[in-house]
């Protein structure tokens, strides 16, 4: 005993991986029962998924006829229909245009996400993007054939409604939040409260129907609104109320001293808000704002219900063809993968930003 101690032969006991895993999964009776139940669920789930996705599926390069006998996924369906799902009925030979337009918007979002570039230049960037997007999609200028808005379908419509809806709603939301936060102008405050509470009290579908049915009635005779525009206006009205509430959360955390300090410097209200209050409030409200953005992006898919052909509607279109009728789940899987990927990027970004600022 003494011998081993003196020669320093005492090491930490090595625990084998088997012991670690046994302790993790079967440490107590409760853990063991839970492990067995979860294992059964996981194995059943994985088996069904693997069977459907790979083992019983038809490989993408085989032809359609092979799908009839298979019980799993029909990958040739996606090979055949992916362009229809992405761009819908946009003229087939011009489909490079929605592709480039979508890529432009995605690139714009990526650029706007870099904190170093978040300043006045972004406003110019988005004006250019809006013009570029419209020119590419609509055409009608030399070299580009005109394509009527009814044939804009799929991914570009989703991106356009989601991104421009949010881009316009954001400043409006900040203005609403500022109007609600102050107490010097009670009439303006009342209007902001009414707007926010009314919009947040009804479902998004109701606001979309408002855009569909009531907005055209409000226009004078000679103006007819394109459904895409009315939908965009409805989305802006809807999202601005939610942005306002996230921003207000940030505004409330800015200490009183900051307002007083700004006042004592003799800054005007506009200077005070722009230079002192908003930068602090927005920084604090960022996680909430990004949550709103994520929700708004997902909810943009609801526009299908009022007959706008975004990516969900083109997915439905792709399997309404009698020959391909059985492969709806493949189409929805494709759309689901797109949403999973983009939403995952957004939420990772939000987590990264939170870590960075705290």
């Amino acid at each position, binding site marked *: 005993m003494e011998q081993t101690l003196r020669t320093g032969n005492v090491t930490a006991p090595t625990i084998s991986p088997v012991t670690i895993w046994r302790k993790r999964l079967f440490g107590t009776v409760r853990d063991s029962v839970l492990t067995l139940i979860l294992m059964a669920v996981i194995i059943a789930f994985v088996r069904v998924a693997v069977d459907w996705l790979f083992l019983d599926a038809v490989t993408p390069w085989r032809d359609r006829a092979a799908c009839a006998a298979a019980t799993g996924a029909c990958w040739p369906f996606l090979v055949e229909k992916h362009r229809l799902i992405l761009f819908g009925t946009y003229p087939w030979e011009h489909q490079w245009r929605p592709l480039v337009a979508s890529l432009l918007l995605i690139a714009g979002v990526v650029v706007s996400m870099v904190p170093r570039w978040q300043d006045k230049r972004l406003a110019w960037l988005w004006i250019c993007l809006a013009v570029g997007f419209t020119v590419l999609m609509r055409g009608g200028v030399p070299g580009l054939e005109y394509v009527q808005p009814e044939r804009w379908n799929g991914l570009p419509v989703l991106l356009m409604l989601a991104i421009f809806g949010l881009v316009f709603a954001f400043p409006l939301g900040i203005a609403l939040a500022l109007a609600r936060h102050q107490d010097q102008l009670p009439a303006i405050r009342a209007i902001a409260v009414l707007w926010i509470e009314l919009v947040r009290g009804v479902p998004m579908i109701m606001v979309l129907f408002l855009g569909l049915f009531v907005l055209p009635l409000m226009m004078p005779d000679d103006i007819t609104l394109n459904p895409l525009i009315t939908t965009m206006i409805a989305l802006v009205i809807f999202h601005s109320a939610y942005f306002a509430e996230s921003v207000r959360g940030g505004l409330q955390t800015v200490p009183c001293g900051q307002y007083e300090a700004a006042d004592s410097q003799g800054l005007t209200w506009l200077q005070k808000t722009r230079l002192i209050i908003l930068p602090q409030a927005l920084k604090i409200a960022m996680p909430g704002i990004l949550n709103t953005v994520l929700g708004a992006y997902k909810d943009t898919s609801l526009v*299908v219900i009022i007959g706008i052909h975004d990516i969900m509607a083109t997915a439905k279109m792709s399997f309404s063809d009698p020959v391909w009728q059985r492969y*709806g789940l493949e189409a929805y899987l494709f759309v689901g993968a797109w949403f999973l990927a983009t939403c995952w990027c957004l939420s990772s970004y939000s987590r990264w930003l939170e870590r960075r600022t705290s």
Partner: protein
Amino acid sequence: MRLPRSQFFWQLLVVGILVWLGYVLASNIEANLAKSNIVLSFDFLSGQAGFDISESLLPVSSTSSYGSVILAGVLNTLTLAFCCIIGATVIGVLMGILRTSGHYLGERVAGFYIEITRNLPKLLILLALYLAMVTALPVVRESWSFFGLVQISNRAVYFPVIEQGIGLYWVIAMLVIWPAALLILGRVAHRIQERTGIRYPVVWPVSIFILAMIAVPATTGLIEYPLSWPVLRGFDFAGGGRISVQFLVLVLALSIYHGGQVAELVRGAIQSVPIGQFEAARASGLSFAQMTRLVILPQAVRAAVPSMGNQYLNITKNTSIALAVGYSDLVSVMTTSINQTFRPIELMTVSMGVYLGICLIVSWLVNIYNARVQMVRA
């Protein structure tokens, strides 16, 4: 009170612009409606609707008035919201507890579930689930039968119900008394325990009593419960009760979707309970179930109530996606009526009023509950 004059000016300017805008828009509406010879009025609500809704708690047919059809839509929305709230809460609380259980697999399974539901639109979950169910379930004529009691087809689930009459009213009355009795006697028992320390059981005695009240009259022949069975006739079942696949899919999809968000709330609430409480509970020799039920959840509820109330409001509003699978909720009835009567202004006003009313009532109830569970600071 600095700069009163400029404040007055700005407010006057904004209000003036809004009034002017409102006037222009309203006069445009009037001009547009006048062109199609429509005057704003709610008289059409008593007119015959002429369309049927698929399922409702009210006896509605195609000869009913618009008013009663809309009321049936409101009831459908409320039923749907109620079922989805229960479903989402059950799934969410289970997953939230699993997420914080410290069990290796459990935490990961719950995390996977939350991540998936967070990153998919609810409409996609709904449509995919609907498609899967309609293709996986058999057609009506070959419906799956479970011991002849329940029939499941890709249109609806059919089951026997008690025929309308004294028996049904008796059962409904007992089912209403049950929770009320539990609540009142539970409170009495609680008070007795606080005073004397003696703990009387409540749940089992009351439940057995209620069941006996339903069962005993039947054996003596005092009250009869004639059953109506679903019978296959032609292309559909007649008689019995039915729940449509649309309703089931909606409840399932919205429960799954909101379950993920509820789980995140529950996780946040559980993590807000100080770690010392867990240690103290373990040191007292409580089992995991006891610790969760008696120590952790009562404290977590306090942190979760306000955001849970918000979540319930969201669920209620999100039932409006029912339109996508053709379930007759308020929005669906509203759009059909708008298409038939072209009275968007009146119908949208009514529906928005209903939603705002529901919101007000729910947040009022949540505030009452919140005031009860919050810590009282002396």
